[in-house]
């Protein structure tokens, strides 16, 4: 019998504790596959956030550090500066990266730290039970915006990829979607690129995943994909916002 698909070596055999239909499982897998393909498992250190993926240190089979809420890019800076011979990624959700950790991500990106940041955007705070996130859409009901997010009171969702792309230093910034098989294939390409540039010490790379949270959106997984396609993709546009390799290849 021939094995044609299996768990990537960069994932442990610990069963994921994510909700059924959650896209964390997909993003974890894409990252782990790319790590295997690039031979990064033994030189990689990951930083896990506070959020649904707080236990990611149980799922990725590489050295991992657990960060305080929002601080992952600062830890990653210290780690990469301490061990430039190794590679570093962070994996963060909306609250971790776009709320409490806004200063840390902007400045790590601005310094051009040689790290890869994976940003899971599902427009809500999953782990704590469905509160509003900086990426929550206008009108969206959450446990702390029960009347729907009122943009006249508390503003609009933050487009992190576009915001970071205004900085000079970042090397590669992309937003991808996990909402369909075709999108997932494209997402894998972006993940691979981000980690390949990391391995080649080209600079700061960033991939934002448009993701779902069926549990806190109150939708079945397939309906959650549909809702996200209709509501999230128009606001959080898929695309590559920075890719210095294109200019470099042209030379």
């Amino acid at each position, binding site marked *: 019998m021939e094995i044609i698909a299996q768990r990537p070596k960069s994932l442990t055999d610990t069963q994921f504790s994510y909700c059924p239909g959650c896209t964390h499982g997909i993003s974890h897998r894409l990252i782990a596959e790319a790590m295997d393909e690039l031979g990064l498992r*033994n030189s990689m250190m990951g930083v896990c956030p506070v959020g649904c993926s707080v236990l990611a240190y149980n799922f990725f089979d*590489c050295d*991992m*550090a657990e960060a*305080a809420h929002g601080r992952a890019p600062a*830890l990653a800076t*210290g780690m990469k500066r301490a061990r430039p011979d190794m590679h570093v990624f962070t994996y963060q959700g909306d609250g971790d990266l776009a709320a409490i950790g806004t200063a840390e991500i902007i400045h790590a990106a601005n310094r051009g730290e040689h790290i890869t940041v994976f940003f899971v955007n599902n427009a809500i705070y999953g782990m704590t039970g469905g509160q509003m996130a900086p990426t929550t859409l206008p009108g969206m009901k959450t446990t702390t915006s029960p009347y729907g997010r009122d943009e006249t009171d508390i503003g609009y969702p933050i487009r992190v990829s576009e915001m970071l792309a205004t900085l000079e230093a970042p090397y590669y910034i992309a937003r991808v979607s996990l909402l369909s098989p075709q999108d997932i294939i494209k997402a894998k390409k972006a993940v691979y690129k981000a980690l390949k540039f990391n391995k080649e010490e080209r600079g700061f790379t960033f991939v934002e995943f448009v993701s779902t949270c069926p549990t806190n959106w109150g939708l079945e997984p397939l309906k959650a994909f549909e809702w996200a396609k209709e509501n999230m993709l128009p606001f959080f546009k898929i695309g590559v916002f920075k890719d210095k390799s294109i200019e470099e290849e042209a030379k």
Partner: protein
Amino acid sequence: MAEKILMKGNEAIAEAALRAGCRLYFAYPITPQSELIEYMSRMMPKAGGTFVQAESEVAAINMVYGASGCGKRVMTSSSSPGVSLKQEGISYISGASLPAVVVNVVRGGPGLGDIQPAQGDYFQATRGGGHGDYRTIVLAPSTVQEFADMAPLAFDLADKYRMVALILSDGLIGQMMEPVEFQPAKTEKELEELNNQHLDWCMHPNEDEPNHHHHIINSLELDPHVLSDLVLNLEKKYIEVEKNEIRFEEYNISPDNEIVCVAFGTAARITKSAIDELQKEGKSVGLIRPITLWPFPAKAIDDAIHQKVRKVLTLELNLGQMIDDVRLALKGKVPVEFMGRVGGLVFTPEEVKAKIEEIFI
């Protein structure tokens, strides 16, 4: 005899840290310790190390966490308001059992306060300003020389016990210039050994199976039984520290003492001048100067209370913080009085002498 260099306290501690093998420093400017970060920005690259000015004291302590998780000697420094920002990070570093050195050049508080010397962070330093059950070793210098000597000591203690060693200095020691004799710098071989001392637990390059073992730096344990074990293990460590690492100075302690003073840092240095003057007048006053504020030299203070001692005077540049520990140490054996100064003001030896004379009767 080794060379003595005239140096500002803030620069002396930085130089001493470099000589102690620190090759990673992350910090944010704040008065009165900006000379420290500036010195590091010049000299750390020359030593082949890494200097990063972080975007905040929060980011800096988390960079320390990351670098420490890789088993490296790493330091940050700040002053009171910035050290408040670091409390979360210090709790995480303590929970994850990581070694780190933090320097606090204390200024007047609370809040934004002022930039003059003070000792108002004693509670924050010794009671653990962050959340949860943890301790940090706290070292209190009283001269620039002692400040410098505490760098290698702090790194050694932090590495030995895998915890935070906090050097609690103040704006006066940080800013004044005194002659300093430095301990020799680490050799290449010693630096190599330092780099490899934590390979049993820190993050470092991995191997394929069968020797594949990934390292996790973490303070999260959702199972309360496991967290309880983790915290009880921290306690075991702290008990060892209390047994082995108490440091203090006895100044003019003798069976003739009628008053014993307890003071640390700059307050102790000033008190010594007053004690010398009083001794000339035949009044015997002793001083116990804690050098480790945690672990606190409770027994040394208790032992210093000889038969003739009628009062203990605690002198601090705050509203009275260490005095709690002094009272706990003495258990009501003898009355404990207080002399303080706040707002960044510093008492003079004459004022201390007058206070001691006042309570002498």
